[in-house]
């Protein structure tokens, strides 16, 4: 990825021949790809026979667009490439940007606190806010495993599912309250994290990814098939709503509204859920930030940088990896318990691979290891997806293009650099070129 970006800057003026050559190659690839997809249209006729007709006009329009687009992109790259921006943007603007970057986290946090106040009567925005915060929390949880310890985990949704089902089953079968079940869900998910961790400790990279992917599927299939316990595909219904330390948020006599002497509104519960997930997410963030500065967190990052080096320093890589899995899984479990209490109904359909991929995309897009980056990416991925709802069928296309562009200009995520955990004089960000991604 890095070579892709630096290549055009290495040869300062690539010349027209180079640009034309690249455009021709792109056009050729487009021709091969689109010749069947666009060039020929097929349909089933009235009696079932194949009807097809050619659309060469559309095909050539597409290929020409790719040819022209390639030239434009190549020219843009030369003007606005990574080296160019440093030279073009004056230092005053740059220091201003750095200042703005420092402000973005507090401003975002303050805004999040005020969302229920500003959008009190807009149920849609509140629900969206809860959804975004759930993914922020999941992203922060997975960030421990992928971003810090460098272990590629494609089955994170398994722990989300374990947390959700832990709360759902404990609450419906034993009548335990949300606040008792929340730590239990976290502990159970962490336990499964360790169980998954043991067999995969010897695996690295792609192999680790495949096994974690399989683990996610195993959990889902067990939930579907263990009908007597989990209700199978029908899921678990009637999961109790959370209470404010025992006071339910219901219209009845003993409800919160009656006790406070205010008029009941269903929005109260939404606002309560919003602040609940915000508190859980901030807890995750706080714990992760603290863990990074503790020996265990440094060992995670060292593990990502060089595993052999870690072992030579007497670090037990086995337990270090297991604690990373367990910590990440625990936060996933908390988020799962919250998900169950918010929905009131859970089924295996909510815990497919797509969720794992989405959370992983958030972590990668945000910049692995960066807390703020993950939060921004969750906002962009979940919120942005809703934003483009008006575009109907082109929504995915816009989204895909946005992600491709981001990966071209910021291959290491929105916030790619790493902040040191300890410093003597001044903390200076470490460029993403030096930080390793980990090999699993």
């Amino acid at each position, binding site marked *: 990825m890095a070579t892709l970006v630096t290549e055009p800057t290495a040869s300062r003026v690539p010349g027209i021949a180079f640009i034309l050559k690249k455009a021709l190659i792109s056009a050729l690839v487009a021709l091969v790809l689109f010749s069947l997809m666009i060039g020929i249209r097929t349909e089933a006729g009235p009696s079932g026979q194949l009807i097809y007709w050619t659309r060469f006009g559309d095909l050539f329009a597409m290929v020409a667009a790719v040819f022209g687009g390639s030239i434009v992109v190549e020219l843009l790259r030369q003007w606005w490439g990574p080296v160019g921006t440093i030279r073009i943007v004056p230092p005053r603007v740059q220091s201003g940007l750095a200042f703005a970057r420092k402000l973005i986290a507090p401003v975002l946090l303050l805004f999040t606190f005020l969302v229920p106040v500003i959008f009190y009567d807009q149920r849609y925005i509140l629900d969206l806010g809860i959804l975004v915060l759930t993914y922020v929390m999941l992203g922060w949880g997975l960030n421990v495993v992928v971003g810090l310890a460098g272990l590629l985990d494609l089955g994170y949704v398994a722990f989300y599912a374990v947390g959700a089902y832990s709360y759902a089953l404990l609450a419906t079968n034993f009548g335990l309250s949300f606040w008792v079940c929340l730590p239990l869900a976290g502990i159970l998910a962490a336990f499964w994290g360790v169980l998954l961790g043991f067999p995969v400790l010897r695996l690295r990279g792609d192999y680790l990814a495949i096994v974690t992917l399989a683990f996610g599927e195993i959990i889902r299939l067990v939930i579907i098939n263990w009908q007597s316990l989990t209700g199978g595909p029908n899921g678990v219904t009637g999961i109790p709503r959370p209470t404010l330390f025992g006071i339910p948020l219901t219209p009845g006599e003993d409800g919160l509204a009656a006790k406070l002497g205010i008029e009941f509104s269903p929005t109260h519960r939404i606002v309560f859920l919003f602040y609940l997930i915000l508190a859980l997410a901030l807890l995750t963030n706080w*714990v992760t930030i*603290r*863990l990074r500065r*503790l*020996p*265990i967190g*440094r*060992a995670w*990052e*060292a593990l*990502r*940088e*060089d595993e*052999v*080096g*870690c*072992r*030579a*320093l*007497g*670090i*037990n*890589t086995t337990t270090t990896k297991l*604690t990373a899995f367990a910590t990440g899984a625990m936060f996933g479990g908390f988020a799962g318990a919250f998900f169950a209490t918010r929905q009131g109904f859970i089924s295996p359909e909510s815990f497919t691979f797509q969720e794992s991929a989405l959370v992983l995309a958030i972590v990668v897009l945000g910049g692995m290891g960066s807390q703020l980056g993950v939060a921004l990416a969750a906002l962009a991925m979940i919120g942005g997806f809703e934003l483009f709802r008006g575009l109907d069928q082109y929504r995915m296309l816009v989204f895909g293009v946005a992600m491709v562009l981001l990966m071209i200009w910021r291959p290491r995520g929105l916030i790619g650099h*790493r902040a*040191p*955990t*300890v*410093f*003597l*004089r*001044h*903390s*200076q960000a*470490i*460029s993403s070129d*030096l*930080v*390793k991604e980990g090999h699993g």
Partner: protein
Amino acid sequence: MSGSDILGVEGLSMRFGGIVAVNDLSFSAQRKKITALIGPNGAGKTTVFNCITGFYKPSNGTMRLTHDDGTDIQLERLNDFRISKLAKVARTFQNIRLFPGMTALENLMVAQHNALMRASGFTFLGLIGSPGYRAAEKHAIDLARLWLDRIGLLERADDAAGNLPYGDQRRLEIARAMCTEPALLCLDEPAAGLNARESAALSDLLLSIRADHGTSILLIEHDMSVVMEISDHVVVLDYGVKIADGSPQQIRDNPKVIAAYLGADEEEALKVMESGT
């Protein structure tokens, strides 16, 4: 074996399938002395290192480490990270293995992982910010600062290790190994890729480590000026077999060693030596 030895290797063999990398090697490293392991390329020096530091499990042989207080540890029974943790053997690598995305200071903090883990109550006390952990962390930073000062990198403490010049990275790796407070320090070609001035600085550093900390050093080195200047004892390997053992002067005058380095037989080597002097 005398009591002054820190490491005693007896009959060490390492086979990879049919290839015998090290064959029935016996040598010892004296306490608070610098022992050099030399030999032509492919002689099996790094394999010996990997056996001692637990990265390989030897096919045969014993390796006994004796601490200052007299406790014996059989290294072949421990696996890699325990050798560093319990036996207090630290090592560096031929191709530098720093944590490039972490600062020089962080690299030295990671090296003190085990001590800090205990102080942080296995993370739980550290998470709530107990005073005991804070004191331990401050102590760890002071130790790191001391070593950064000794290798002359105090100014660059907050720079990423991967951004440091090659020679600085070499010294930082030695400092990182020393931060584990080892009894035996194993250095795999510490002078590789260094210029003459940097090599001289390295020699001074190693001599001061031996003098000030009483750490025993075992090193592999190709740079003979470094080996002859600082080592107290030299062991020569060729094709996995020990061919000579003695003081630097003895090794320098040993025709077998010259022959091994020249790839010639002993008589030719003698001729070369005579004509040279």
